């Protein structure tokens, strides 16, 4: 094909477990092909080499939890043409957003011997609350094949195939038997954004909602059904208070059972 210049890609970490950026390293077979086509400009997990910005693409992992990060994300945005957030921390605030439901000072006083050294924000928030985000890739962790797909689509100037519909559709494409209907196992699939290939239902478990709310989620109807089938408010509150607890539809739903 016609020579194209190698885009400069940077990977940034905010408050997160590193799992999502490690997905990129986990793409063994595809990684070499990816590395041929892009210039990795800043990827501390993979290499110490740092190439100066501006960057064509920034992949941002993690949520904003400290005053320092709040400043840093502005710098990342300024030096990036395209900013893509990856994973539940970056797109929804992550599991650490559980702090948002309580007073963070209480946690700090309980956990740290010297709370005065801790400089943190009251809330863990997604990147899109702070800067403009061009594309959000969901998941906790993200699906590495979807990450390759997003990079691939960007390189080839096409739309990535990361549909926002329910996990149920992919569950059915896989030929799974619905665990909710056939076994009475609670499953968040009908309100959850697809992306994992319905991994848990494929192994006979209910969906935990790792990819966050799907388009037009009806969490209320699902909760009512599950409660009719024997779940209590505490269980429903916990079901929606996972990695995507701070995404608005899940947050509202969990609060209604609090």
């Amino acid at each position: 094909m016609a020579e194209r210049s190698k885009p400069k890609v940077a990977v940034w970490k905010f408050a997160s477990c590193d799992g999502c950026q490690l997905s990129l390293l986990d793409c063994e077979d595809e990684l070499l092909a990816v590395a041929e086509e892009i210039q990795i400009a800043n990827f501390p997990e993979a290499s110490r080499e740092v190439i100066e910005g501006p960057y064509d693409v920034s992949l941002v992992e993690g949520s904003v939890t400290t005053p320092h990060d709040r400043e840093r994300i502005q710098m990342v945005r300024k030096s990036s043409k395209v900013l893509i957030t990856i994973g539940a921390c970056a797109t929804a605030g992550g599991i650490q957003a559980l702090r948002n439901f309580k007073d963070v000072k209480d946690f700090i006083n309980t956990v740290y011997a010297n709370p005065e050294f801790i400089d943190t924000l009251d809330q863990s928030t997604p990147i899109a609350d702070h800067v403009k985000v061009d594309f959000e890739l969901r998941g906790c962790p993200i699906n590495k094949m979807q990450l390759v797909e997003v990079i691939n689509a960007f390189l080839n100037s096409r739309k990535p195939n990361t549909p926002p519909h329910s996990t149920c559709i992919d569950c059915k494409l896989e030929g799974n038997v619905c665990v909710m209907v056939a076994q009475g196992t609670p499953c968040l699939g009908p309100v959850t954004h697809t992306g994992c290939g319905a991994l848990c239902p494929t192994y006979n478990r209910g969906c935990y909602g790792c990819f966050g709310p799907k388009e037009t989620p009806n969490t209320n109807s699902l909760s009512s059904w599950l409660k009719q089938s024997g779940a209590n408010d505490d269980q429903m509150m916990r079901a929606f208070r996972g990695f995507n607890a701070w995404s608005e539809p899940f947050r509202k739903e969990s609060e209604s059972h609090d």
Partner: protein
Amino acid sequence: MNAPVLIDTIGLGQLIKLLQKKGYQVMGPTVRDEAIVYDTLDSINDLPQGWTDEQEAGHYRIKKRDDNAYFGYVVGPHSWKKYLHPPRRRLWRAEQKDGEVDIIPESAESTRFAFLGVRSCELHAITIQDEVFIKGPHVDNDYRLRRENALIIAVNCTQSAPTCFCVSMNTGPKAESGYDLVLTEILENNIHHFLVQAGSEKGLELLGELDPRPAKESDISKAEKGIEQAAQQMSRSMKTDGIKELLFENLEHPRWDEVAERCLSCANCTMVCPTCFCSTVEDVTDITGDHAERWQRWDSCFTMDFSYLHGGSVRSSTKSRYRQWMTHKLASWIDQFGSSGCVGCGRCVTWCPVGIDITEEVRAIENAGSKTSTPSQGGKE
């Protein structure tokens, strides 16, 4: 095609072997993941002998029967659509080399399927999909090939589930046509017989190789009684007289808002429905951009992308999406393909995670409709 004959379990086992010998991949019911699904059958031992299913809106459980019937279940989560119109299929590939683009069409699938255990409603569903994929102006050749190669061994239902409503849809429980062979299971004191009739030359030929016994009058009446029992058990129904007019005259009925409060727009109903045929295409490339593929995959009118025109989705509310599904199945399908798009199999009722029941939704509109308009169903206002 022939006078009914009888085979026993040995005959049934031989039938499977015979089909395999003839080069068919035999697909049929088997127990997996706490359900009776359709999968490859190696032998008669793979059949769900002694199992049945318990179904209600949003509820399915397999249960042990107190006899050892082979076909003592109804319909499960899968339908034959997954073989004839597979969930994902590559349509073509393209390679780019030295500035030239080469398009490589997919070679047509040559798998020869033999479907064992096809129920009457499913025969009707296959006929409906034939209408969509073969009879219209745009023939899906891949589907046509699979369909022409497929051999169908139907089984008459001798029991029905509370979610079935084929009687009211005129689609069962007795298989009337569209099969190569049809079996009715007769089980007495745990002794098995299958009443067999051929529906095609191919079926007749197969039967000839099985060495069946002639059936007695009493065998035939036992089989008929079984089918009659399935019809008698059926508690659900849908009133189809004037249904098209009823739905079209009630497009702004408040019931659509009510069902939208419950509907998850999860698309399970369209995925399990044996007649829903919608698909979308996804283009993929490899990283270099030298290799591209176009894939087809099942889609549903419950997604936003389905009605995406430039600038947004035409059906953004769940109300409009549920209404699309139901009015297409039960009303506009009639104009489009000459029959209802529903065969009364009850899958959308059972496999809806929140138990939404299409028959109940029709009834709600019908009842409320008759309050505000003339008493006759679908009457003009």
